[in-house]
């Protein structure tokens, strides 16, 4: 990566266009008996980076490809800046796409790859070359214009692909798991660069990934999908702290389920011998429930008397150590402690388990 940061003049297009908004309305798509999308409603705000996150088969890639024009919905609309583009063919859409892999044309060098779209628009050779060089500089590969794809590493290829996607100044940038095929370290670097570029250009961006860490660290908002439906669309912190469904709670980060009971008062739950307020409103009272707690919110203290919860194993994770604790009812939970604090609680230690005096998330007993 070049040391000189690109100047503002080259990074931001001189004609500052207003960022575009994207809307998916009621998108449905089935492939034979398999349903890819079962009614997706989602709006992407101008200039934001929205991550589509979910397990394989949840429909996130299908939705992205519908925006690019490679898939047509069975019903529903795709709107760009309020105008319906569902019927517009793929080669006339204004959405630059970065594919997961192998998308660079093998017979063209990096510069010609980047300039391809401009060539289709019949832009003159000199102007094409200048713009391509400008973009190569933007992605940090100014000296690589004459290299061919097979001479480039995976990370370099994806940077060229990114430059190519931006060449025509699209209104939307689409990224289809662009980092999945790369090594961990390269992935980290590229992740930050994509985010930096996106913010400088203020381009509306849709980013598909199955890696929740990627989504949480990069995006302005994250849309969690499952089985063709939207589970929750919120900022990363809200997603983490206030998951709307059990699936989101367990997909994003790790979540413990501790047995608890709601009595006559539906606003209070009894768990681990404590009475804690319920976060949100419950529909029914007098039921057994599961209390959802993040590992970092579990408080452990060494217990001098025997019996009760026991630490069964510890996992050193660097700054944090994750302890597996077996509760009295036989279930196990995970607790994250700083390594310094965890030193006093090796496997086999008897502990007391407490939760902080805060409202807790509650789900029906599974």
């Amino acid at each position, binding site marked *: 990566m070049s040391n000189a940061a690109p100047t503002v003049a080259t990074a931001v297009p001189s004609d500052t266009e207003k960022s575009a908004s994207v809307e998916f309305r009621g998108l449905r798509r089935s492939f034979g008996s398999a349903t890819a999308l079962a009614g997706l409603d989602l709006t992407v705000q101008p200039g934001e980076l929205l991550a589509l996150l979910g397990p394989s088969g949840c429909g996130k890639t299908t939705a992205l490809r519908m925006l690019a*024009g490679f898939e047509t919905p069975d019903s529903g609309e795709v709107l760009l800046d309020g105008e319906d583009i569902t019927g517009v063919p793929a*080669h006339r859409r204004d*959405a630059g796409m970065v594919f997961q892999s192998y998308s660079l044309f093998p*017979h063209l060098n990096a510069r010609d790859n980047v300039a391809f779209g401009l*060539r*289709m628009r019949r832009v003159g050779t000199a102007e094409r070359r200048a713009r391509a060089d400008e973009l190569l500089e933007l992605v940090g590969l100014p000296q690589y214009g004459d290299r061919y794809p097979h001479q480039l590493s995976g990370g370099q290829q994806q940077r060229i692909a990114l430059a190519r996607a931006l*060449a*025509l100044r699209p209104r939307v940038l689409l990224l289809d798991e662009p980092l999945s095929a790369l090594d961990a370290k390269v992935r980290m670097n590229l992740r930050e660069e994509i985010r930096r570029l996106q913010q400088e250009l203020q381009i509306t961006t849709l980013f598909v990934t199955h890696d929740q860490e990627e989504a949480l660290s990069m995006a302005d908002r994250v849309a969690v999908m499952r089985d063709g439906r939207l589970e929750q669309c919120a900022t990363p912190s809200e997603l983490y702290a206030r998951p709307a469904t059990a699936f989101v709670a367990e997909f994003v980060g790790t979540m413990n389920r501790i047995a608890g009971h709601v009595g006559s008062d539906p606003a209070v739950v009894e768990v681990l011998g404590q009475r804690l307020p319920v976060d949100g409103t419950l529909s029914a009272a007098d039921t057994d429930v599961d209390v959802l707690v993040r590992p970092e919110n579990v408080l452990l203290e060494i217990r001098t008397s025997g019996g009760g919860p026991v630490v069964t194993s510890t996992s050193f994770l660097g700054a944090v150590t994750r302890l597996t604790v077996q509760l009295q009812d036989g279930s196990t939970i995970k607790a994250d402690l700083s390594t310094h604090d965890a030193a006093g609680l090796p496997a086999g230690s008897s502990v007391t388990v407490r939760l902080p005096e805060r409202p807790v998330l509650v789900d029906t007993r599974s």
Partner: protein
Amino acid sequence: MSTIDPLAPTGAAGADRSRRRLRSSLRKAAAGRVAVLPLLLFVAVAFGLPAVAMAYGSFTTYAPGQPSHYTTGNLSASLSGGYLTALLGSVKLSAIAALIATVLGLLLAQAVVTSRFEVLRHAVLSASGVLANFGGVPLAFAFIATLGNNGLLTQHLHLTAAGWNLYDLTGLGLVYLYFLIPLMVLTVIPALDGLRKQWREAAQNNGAGLWQYWRYVALPVLTPSLLGGFVLLFGSAFAAYATAAAMVGAGGAVPLITLQIAASLNGNVDANATNVALAMSLDMVVISVLVMAVYLPLQRRSARWLV
């Protein structure tokens, strides 16, 4: 500060260990060579002997009862007169038929690859395997029955009156297409399969319509394969004998070098004809070597792009 590599063999024990490692890798290499030995020996005998004999015979004379001596006369005879006409005829026929079959084979292969019916692909691939490799006898018969002097189409469409003759170079070319097009299909289908879907989509994403995609992406990427296929087809047409022999019989009726060689070998011509036939064979080998020399680098290039 010098660093010590704990794995590097040191001292006497180390030298012994590395010697053992070398020996085991040598043993593995030797095992490989032993496994390949039968093949090499067989090829040396069953192929090498006739090949060397052919080369030797091209440069010697033969007259019964007299000792043979070295000469370039056979070679010069093979490149003059009727023999030269036959050689040029073969080259012309092969080049034109290969060119037509390259284009048509590409069209057919693309139609098969993009079809929705998987059965069609299996059917065409297996049929191509048969037609390209089986040899030209059945297809010669099929064409005689269709377009020969008494063939079905010839009679119903009165083609002889229009000047049609199956038994000249044009007619033969039409028959050659019957195994050249399948050969092209077999060669080019892996290349078409290798055209990644992402390239089409990336091209569309950059504003290229169907025609632009083919002109700027697909055809350039396919060109090494197409050229390689053309060269392979040329070699195949050039070496073909069975079809022409089945239709026209060995001899000078149609100027083809393979027919000339067969005629000379059958000994109906003068005694030295066999050696001239060997010289003609040598000419053919030279041309085939040139064909291979062009084909192999092209194949390597296309393999790099389309893997």
